[in-house]
């Protein structure tokens, strides 16, 4: 909603400065989005009158104007516009005026003439995108006054009553009275006197409502013998300030009344209404209407139409039809004011994607009791500005208009809710300027009649909000809360997520945050299409159609993106959910409807691709299976998981079948990792080896980590024996280690693999694994002989179980 302060002052009589008024708007919930200073705030723009226009020698595009402004002497201003004449009132900018976009007016010479200021167009002032030529102001403006300020406010959806200058003025009157009790502004509605002709409106046209639910009331007036012409400049200025383009006096009047009183009106060319008749009915299936903007719309039965005896003439509450439009030849007008059911207008407007100033208001809810006031105001203006004769009376079709019940406000409740101590008197002082009427009051309660324009007020809490809003949020004192002092341990999931994230960061990974939706194809990497995918009905783009059921595709997308940007090393991790619908029959088991609709599983996932030279000294290390396995071990040990069993994975289609594995703890899979299948990488346009790890944050991952228990530090020396074992290539390291431990028994303190070799120096089909075995006894120093004997037993066991021979 955009309006000018000059216009506002017709309805809010006050000598308070413009800035005070503007500040009060935000204070009471009408948030100021933008202020255009047209002189009222800075004094740098005033109304001037053109006294003379003279040519400049040698110039044929510009002239010099003599303009009376706020100084004692007229100003000389060079101007290149040709729409001005002597006697016009125009906006005159002084030096120092700041224009939208940051331009500040400074003195300069044009054709040797140093002008005294500048005449402005609407476009220069930011009032309108159009506006060729100087903005011509209303003729009756006093010369020399700072001109105006235009304010754009945003109105929350609960306040359709504030979508009018009268609504804004009403709120301001209430709020400014609180702020300036000694200088209260006066709220004033426009005076209404409709001169009526002798003929009755009812004899000139008929109205009937068929769709009584959707249209509780339809009222019309008839104005005869109008002359279509441009509307007067003052009205054009109001419309222009509001961002509307003036059209002609009849159309402008309906728009003006909507901006002034809030109620959208429509004017039909009465002579174009077949049968001089209005029928309000629902559309028939497949019926069509061509609207004013020459669009043909196909309708449904839930849409509401205004029709004449034969055809639709308007899409109710949204837009008029082209067939009954006001034109230059229009002589007789039928003026419509109606109350439409908000939901009906909203549904049609949304379905047809057609939103207008009118539909915007109707779908939020108009005042069902102000139809005649709006009609009368428009009729009055048509009589005075278009020379029409208003026929006597209204044509009124009434259905069931919603009534407002009175509300009882408990003072104690109000004070407790806000944390204030207001008296009944203070409360009614705040509420009455808004139109609330005190029906009854005592020390505890006030019974209030709710003004019909406040469609949002129906509960005691609504009144509490009204009081707070006008009394002022700033005057509510801050108070401290006594919170229950219980300690809230972090939930296991939160604890684990934080631990993993911190560790991943310390290990060099950067955290990615990806959209939860991916493409069907990406989800297809990890499973079949039909298995419970959470598919969106209205995705924004074709590659965000389903909720991801693995973090894999998101992270691969990130890898591809970064490779495209020539990033050499890509270490990323993500904490996020996967989403799968349970089988239909298992869904919604909770009678209260609290079962989450989808199974959302939290995951930790990491991806590693490429390698950069970390520094000038160390070699580049391309990631491989063992790197990611190492990370998996690291993360799992951080979560307190020991006794892990590793298992080769060959059945996960997106992993390299020879380079993938999972860890199991207590028989449950706790991590899946490995190199990605080359085919998957190709699919995702990734041309480098990439490794991936995922840990579901469920079950064992969330268990409390057991606290480490101190073990005595060994007091006796250890003896270390290294041995390189030559074994068949398919002998697994894990099995060798198991044998070593078993044979080393109590004297073997630890075993560590320190080298793996396969190549020219060993025979084909074999490899060499070198282990370092540490022998130690907790209670004595081992003798050389003891160690040699036990080590011999170990080697024998290796030979026996794995045909492993020490290499020399």
């Amino acid at each position, binding site marked *: 909603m955009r309006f000018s302060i000059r216009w506002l002052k017709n309805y809010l009589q006050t000598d308070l400065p413009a800035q005070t008024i503007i500040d009060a708007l935000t204070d009471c919930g009408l948030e100021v989005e933008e202020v255009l200073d047209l002189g009222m705030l800075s004094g740098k723009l005033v109304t001037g009158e053109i006294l003379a226009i003279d040519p400049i020698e040698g110039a044929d595009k510009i002239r010099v104007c003599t303009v009376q402004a706020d100084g004692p002497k007229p100003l000389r201003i060079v101007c290149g516009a040709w729409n001005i004449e002597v006697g016009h009132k125009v906006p005159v900018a002084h030096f120092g005026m700041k224009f939208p976009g940051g331009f500040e007016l400074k003195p300069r010479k044009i054709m040797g003439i140093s002008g005294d200021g500048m005449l402005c167009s609407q476009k220069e002032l930011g009032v309108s995108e159009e506006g060729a030529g100087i903005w011509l102001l209303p003729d009756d403006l006093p010369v020399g006054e700072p001109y105006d300020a235009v304010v754009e406010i945003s109105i929350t959806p609960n306040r359709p009553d504030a979508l009018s200058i009268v609504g804004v003025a009403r709120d301001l009157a209430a709020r400014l009275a609180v702020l300036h009790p000694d200088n209260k502004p006066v709220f004033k509605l426009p005076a209404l006197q409709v001169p009526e002709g002798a003929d009755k409106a009812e004899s000139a046209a008929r109205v009937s409502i068929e769709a009584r639910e959707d249209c509780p009331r339809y009222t019309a007036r008839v104005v005869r013998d109008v002359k279509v012409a441009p509307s007067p400049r003052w009205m054009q200025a109001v419309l222009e300030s509001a961002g509307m383009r003036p059209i002609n006096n009849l159309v402008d009047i309906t728009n003006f009344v909507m901006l002034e009183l809030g109620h959208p009106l429509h004017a039909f060319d009465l002579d174009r209404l077949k049968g001089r008749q209005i029928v309000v009915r629902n559309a028939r299936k497949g019926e069509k209407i061509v609207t004013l903007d020459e669009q043909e719309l196909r309708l449904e039965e839930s849409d509401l139409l205004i029709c004449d005896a034969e055809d639709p003439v308007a899409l109710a509450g949204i837009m008029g039809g082209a067939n009954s439009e006001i034109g230059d030849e229009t002589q007789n007008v039928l003026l419509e004011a109606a109350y439409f059911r908000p939901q009906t207008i909203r549904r049609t407007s949304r379905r047809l994607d057609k939103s207008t100033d009118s539909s915007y208001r109707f779908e939020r809810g108009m005042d069902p009791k102000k139809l005649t006031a709006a009609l009368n105001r428009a009729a009055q203006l048509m009589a005075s500005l278009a020379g029409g004769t208003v026929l006597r009376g209204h044509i009124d079709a009434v259905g069931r208009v919603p009534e407002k019940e009175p509300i009882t406000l408990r003072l104690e409740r109000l004070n407790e809710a806000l944390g204030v101590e207001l008296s009944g008197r203070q409360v009614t002082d705040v509420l009455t300027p808004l139109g609330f009427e005190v029906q009854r009051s005592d020390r505890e309660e006030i019974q209030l009649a709710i003004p019909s324009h406040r469609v949002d007020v129906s509960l005691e809490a609504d009144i509490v909000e009204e009081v707070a809003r006008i009394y002022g949020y700033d005057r509510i004192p801050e108070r401290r809360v006594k919170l229950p002092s219980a300690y809230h341990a972090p939930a296991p*999931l939160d604890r684990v997520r934080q631990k993993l994230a911190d560790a991943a960061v310390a290990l060099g990974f950067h955290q990615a945050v990806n959209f939860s939706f991916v493409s069907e194809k990406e989800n297809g990497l990890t499973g079949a299409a039909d298995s419970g995918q959470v598919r969106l009905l209205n995705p924004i783009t074709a590659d965000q159609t389903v909720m991801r059921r693995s973090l894999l595709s998101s992270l691969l997308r990130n890898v591809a993106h970064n490779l495209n940007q020539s990033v050499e090393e890509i270490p990323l991790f993500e904490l996020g959910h996967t989403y799968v619908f349970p089988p239909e029959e298992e869904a919604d088991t909770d009678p209260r409807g609290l079962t989450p609709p989808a199974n959302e599983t939290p995951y930790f996932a990491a991806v590693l691709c490429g390698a950069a030279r970390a520094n000038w000294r160390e070699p580049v290390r391309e990631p491989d299976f063992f790197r990611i396995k190492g990370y998996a071990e690291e993360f799992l040990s951080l979560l307190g998981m020991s006794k892990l069993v590793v298992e080769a994975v060959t059945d996960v289609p997106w992993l390299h079948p020879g380079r993938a594995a999972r860890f199991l703890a207590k028989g449950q899979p706790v991590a899946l990792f490995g190199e990605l299948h080359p085919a998957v990488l190709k699919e995702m346009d990734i041309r480098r080896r990439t490794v991936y790890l995922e840990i579901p944050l469920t079950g064992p991952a969330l268990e409390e980590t057991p606290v480490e228990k101190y073990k005595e530090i060994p007091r006796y020396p250890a003896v270390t024996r290294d041995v390189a074992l030559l074994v068949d290539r398919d002998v697994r390291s894990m099995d060798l280690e198991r044998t070593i431990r078993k044979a080393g028994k109590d004297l073997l303190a630890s075993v560590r693999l320190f080298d793996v070799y396969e190549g020219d120096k060993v025979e084909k089909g074999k490899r060499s694994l070198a282990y370092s075995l540490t022998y130690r006894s907790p209670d004595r120093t081992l003798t050389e002989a003891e160690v040699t004997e036990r080590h011999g037993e170990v080697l024998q066991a290796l030979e026996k179980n794995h045909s492993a021979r020490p290499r020399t």
Partner: protein
Amino acid sequence: MSDIFSGSDLQTGEYSEALASLIADLNAVVPEARKAISAAADRKAIEQLRVQFLGKKGRITKLNQRLGKLSGEERPVAGKLLNTQRTEITALLEKRTAELEVRELESRIAEEAVDVTLPGIRPARGGLHPVTRVTREIEEIFRSMGFRLESGPEVETEWLNFDALNMPEDHPARDMQDTFYTERGHVLRTHTSPTQLRSMLAAKPPLAVITTGKVYRHDSDATHSPMFHQMEGFLVDEAISMGHLKGVLHEFLRALYGPDVRTRFRPSFFPFTEPSAEVDIWFEARGGWMEVLGCGMIHPAVLRNGGIDPERYSGFAFGLGIDRMTCIKFGIPDLRLLFENDLRFLRQFQG
């Protein structure tokens, strides 16, 4: 000390020729040793000199053997003299060794000097996503104030996301939050508020809970992302007023933006709170107010839907967009940068 032996221990003129010759030789050894030792260039040379003078076949040893030819009276005198000379040479060797050690250390140190301007070998460290950093900061503040952290599902029922929060179908407020729908007729939660109801239905007041998480709206441009992060908190107890709401949020903003933060509560509208407010803070750098929070007293209908009697209990709720706050904090101009996961972006945040 050119003449280390004056012969004062013996009566002058009474000593033998053997002794005289020994003394003369002895007196010659020390100056010779001193000269050689001071010329020694390294410890290997020192070692050779040690052998040459003090070794088994060294000069002193050889002189020592001549003691046997002396008389019983002269022998101790000469022996004493010999010891003095040996001690002297030993001291000279040690002194020179120490000198050489210092010199060797010095030259080693000189050789070991590196170009200290070469970059250090840093362990690779990653970084938390900037949104996570802001989320943690917010969570920590509220946790320290006594709030409990809870979470809820992102695929949510329409009832919990809208209806229970006082947004019936056909309510214009539903437009404020353009919604993603799933094939089964559920929604992607448009805000974290459904968690409020889940918490209310799960436990009895007093309740002080915050939630952070992903939310979804059908909207995408530089300032709107179809997925973004919200923080939501609420408190329900007996006799909770709007004054408490102001107190708690002001405290939070002080913790986040410093003790001198200027705040402004102005009326606004949310279907699930009444009165509703938006909170602005003053940004000196921009010379203007900036909206950071939405809040209000929980609407009685919402309390009732949460199984709480609005006549007995009251409460407040508040929410904020974490991503916007992140963008402000780090000066990120476009929300979409947050979700591209470009490492050239992410590597800027390692704090």
